C-alpha cells in the first residue's frame, strides 16, 4: 500500500435516527474492511440482545452508554477508515434542530458534507437545514445521498425529482460543488460497488466520489497569513540567538526571502528561514506547522501575525459576524465575552443583533432577537484590541472566531466573520 501518497479527507454526516445515517457509516466502515472481528462480534451480540434480525450495522457507530440506552446520538463522534487512496475522518452528528451546534462543530473542519435524503419522503426540513449549515460553514463539496432506493424500486423518476427539488432551493445557498448518488445503505447499492439496480445512473459510487473529489484547492493558497502561536527560544550555546516563530500556516505560501509585514506593529522585514526538525524548508503552505525566522530582530509574540506586505488582512475592532449560539444561557446583548481568533485572544462586547435567522425558512427575524441555544444570528462585535482577519468566505481559519463565557469558561458561540 502506497501510504505515502494518500490524502486526508474530512467529511461530515448529519441525519435522524431514522434516515439510515448510522447504517450508512456502518456500511462504509464494514465494506472498506475497517471493522475488526472483535468489534463485529460485539455488535452481533448486541443485535441479538436487542432481538434484531441479522447484524445491525448502525450499532457500530453508537458511542456512550447513555446514548446506547436512549438509542440516540447526543454529540459529535469521529470515525476513521481508509482506502489505499485516502484516509477519511467522519464527523458524525445528529440532525435534529436542537443539535444545530453539533452540526456546526462537525462542519467547521470538513471538506465534504454528506447529506442523506430518504427516497420515500424526499427533501424535508432537515435536508434544507443540513444544506444551509454546509453553506454557512463553507464546506466546499456537498454529496447528496438519496437513500433507501430499494424501497422505491430503484426508480429513476424518484431520484430525478429529488435532485431537481434540491437544486430548486440550493441555488439560493452558497454551495459550489454538489453531486447526487442513489444508494441503499442497508443493501449496499452504490456504496462501494456499482449497483445493478440503477443502470440509469451514470455517476460514481459513494466511495468513488469520496476518493476522487478534488480537495487540492480547499485551502487558501493566495493570502499569506501566519499567526504566531509560540516563540521558540532555545537559550543554549548551540542556538544562542535563535528566535523562531512557531505556528501553522493559515493561508498562502511562505518562502524564504519573501517581504513580510508584522501585525500589529506594521514593521516590514523578510523571511530569513523556514525551519523544521527535519531541516530548512523551501516553502510552507496550509496546513503545515513550521517555524519562521525573520531577518530583522523584532519582538513578536503569540497572537501577532506575519503577512505579505502587498496582501494584508483587515485590521479592525469592529466585526460583523454570523454566529451559532451553543449555550443554554441566551446571548446577552451588550454582554462581554472572551473572543478567540487564530492565536489571538481579546474581549468583546456584543453591540447589536442585526437579525435572527430561521434556518428552515431562511427568514430574517428582526423583531424577536432573543438568541438561544442552536440559533443562528448576525451580530456586531466590538473587540478590546484590533483583530487581523479575512472574511470567512475567503479563509476559514482567519475568518472564524469562538466566544467564551468568562464566568463559566464555556464556549458559548462559534462565529463566521462576514
Amino acid at each position, binding site marked *: *500500500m502506497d*501510504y*505515502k501518497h*494518500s*490524502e*486526508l479527507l474530512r467529511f461530515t454526516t448529519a441525519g435522524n435516527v431514522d434516515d439510515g445515517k448510522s447504517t450508512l457509516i456502518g456500511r462504509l466502515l464494514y465494506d472498506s474492511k475497517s471493522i*475488526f*472481528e*472483535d468489534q463485529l462480534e460485539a455488535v452481533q451480540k448486541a443485535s441479538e440482545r436487542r432481538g434484531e434480525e441479522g447484524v445491525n450495522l448502525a450499532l457500530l*457507530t453508537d*458511542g*456512550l*452508554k447513555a446514548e446506547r440506552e436512549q438509542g440516540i446520538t447526543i*454529540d*459529535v*463522534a*469521529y*470515525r*476513521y477508515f*481508509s482506502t489505499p487512496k*485516502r*484516509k477519511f475522518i467522519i464527523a*458524525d452528528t445528529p440532525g435534529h434542530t436542537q443539535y444545530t451546534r*453539533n452540526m456546526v*462543530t462537525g462542519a*467547521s*473542519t470538513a471538506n465534504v458534507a454528506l447529506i442523506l435524503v430518504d427516497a420515500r419522503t424526499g427533501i424535508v426540513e432537515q435536508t434544507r437545514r443540513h444544506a444551509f449549515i454546509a453553506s454557512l460553514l463553507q464546506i466546499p463539496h456537498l454529496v447528496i445521498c438519496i437513500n433507501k432506493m430499494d424501497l422505491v424500486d430503484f426508480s429513476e423518476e424518484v431520484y430525478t425529482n429529488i435532485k431537481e427539488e434540491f437544486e430548486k432551493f440550493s441555488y439560493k445557498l452558497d454551495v459550489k460543488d454538489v453531486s447526487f448518488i442513489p444508494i441503499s445503505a442497508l443493501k449496499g447499492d452504490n456504496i462501494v460497488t456499482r449497483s445493478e439496480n440503477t443502470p440509469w445512473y451514470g455517476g460514481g459510487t459513494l466511495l468513488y466520489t469520496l476518493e476522487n473529489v478534488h480537495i*487540492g484547492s480547499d*485551502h487558501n493558497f493566495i493570502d499569506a497569513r501566519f499567526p504566531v*502561536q*509560540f516563540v*521558540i*527560544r*532555545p537559550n543554549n550555546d548551540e*542556538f544562542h540567538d*535563535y528566535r*523562531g516563530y*512557531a505556528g501553522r500556516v*493559515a493561508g498562502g*505560501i511562505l518562502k524564504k526571502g519573501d517581504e513580510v509585514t508584522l501585525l500589529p506593529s506594521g514593521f516590514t522585514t523578510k523571511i530569513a528561514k523556514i*525551519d*523544521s*526538525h527535519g531541516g530548512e524548508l523551501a516553502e510552507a*503552505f496550509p*496546513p*503545515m*506547522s513550521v*517555524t519562521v525566522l525573520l531577518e530583522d530582530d523584532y519582538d513578536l509574540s503569540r497572537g501577532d501575525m506575519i503577512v505579505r506586505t502587498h496582501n494584508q488582512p483587515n485590521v479592525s475592532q469592529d466585526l460583523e459576524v454570523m454566529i451559532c449560539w451553543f449555550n443554554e444561557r441566551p446571548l446577552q446583548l451588550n454582554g462581554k465575552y472572551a473572543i*478567540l*481568533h*487564530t*492565536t489571538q485572544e481579546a474581549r468583546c462586547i456584543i453591540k447589536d443583533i442585526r437579525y435572527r435567522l430561521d434556518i428552515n425558512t431562511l427568514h430574517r427575524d428582526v423583531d424577536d432577537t432573543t438568541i438561544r441555544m442552536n440559533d443562528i444570528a448576525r451580530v456586531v462585535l466590538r473587540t478590546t484590541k484590533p483583530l487581523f482577519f479575512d472574511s470567512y468566505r475567503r479563509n476559514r*481559519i482567519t475568518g*472564524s*472566531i*469562538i466566544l*467564551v463565557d468568562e464566568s463559566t*469558561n464555556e*464556549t458559548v458561540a*462559534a462565529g463566521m466573520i462576514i
Partner: protein
Amino acid sequence: MDFNYNLNHLKELEAESMFVLREVAAQFENPVLLFSGGKDSILVTYLAMKAFYPARIPFPLLHIDTGHNFQETLDYRDELVERTGARLIVGSVQEAIDQGRVVEEKGLNASRNFLQTAVLLESMEKGKYDAAIGGARRDERKPAPKERFFSHRDEFGQWDPKNQRPELWNLFNGKKNIGEHFRIFPISNWTELDVWQYLSMEGVNLPSLYFAHQREVFERDGMLLAASEVIQRRPTEIPFETTVRFRTIGDITCTGAVKSTAGTIDDVIDEIAASRVTERGTRADDKRSETAMEDRKKQGYF
C-alpha cells in the same frame, strides 16, 4: 518539491498534532506529558520534540510506574530521556502500596490499573499540573470517538461527558478554574495504522517488545500473557516458548502478546493491515465489561 501543495495524510496529521502541542505550551502554565512507554506516548514525545525544535520539550514527562513494567520499557524510557534532555518524573504504584495509600488487588486477574489511576491523580496534584498530555486515540474503543483534543476535568479529575466543550476549526478553549485541569490528546485523529506508518516514514526507534521475539508465555481466555512472576497462574496454565510481539504495551499483568514473525516496522504494518482484531482486543483490562473504558475514563484513568 511538492508541486501540488498537498500534504500526505501522515504529514497533515503531524501538522495538526504539532499545533495542538504548541497550543498546550502557550495556554497552560504547568503541563506534563504522560509517558507510558507505549508506542502512542513515544509518538507524542517525538511530535513534541519536533514542535519545539531546536528548543527542548518545554514540559516534563510523567511515568506512572506500576512496578510491573517490562524491563525493555524502562530501558527505552531512560534512553529517550537521556537523548532528548527531557525531564522525567516517576510516580510509583509500588511506593503507594508500600505506604498503604492504596490497596493491591488479589487473585488471578489482579491488575494495578485501578491503582494507577489513583497514583496518577496524586502525582498530578503534587506537581500542580494543569494539563496532562496523553496518547489516546479516537479509533480506540468506546467512548473515545467523542473525546476532545482538549478534554476538561473537574477538581476531582473526573470527566463529565455532558460538560465537554465543542471544538471548531483551530480554536481550542483551555480556560479553567483553579483546581481543574485538562487532558490533552494531540493524536486524537490517528489510527493504529497511521501511527505505524508514520513511525516507519520517520525512522523512529521503538522498544524491542513491539517486534517478534522468543518469549515464555501462557494462554488465558484466548490471550497470550507473559509468564512472569507478577501474574499468578492456574496449575493448568502451562507456560511455553513461542515467537510473539506486543501490539500495545502496558503493565505486564494485562498486556497480551500475539503470535507474530514481524521483525521490522514494515512487517508490522503489513500484519496490521491484514489483521482482523483491534489492538485493544489484546488488553485484558478492557475486557472486564463492555463499558470498561468509559467507566475508567470517568474515574480519571485517561
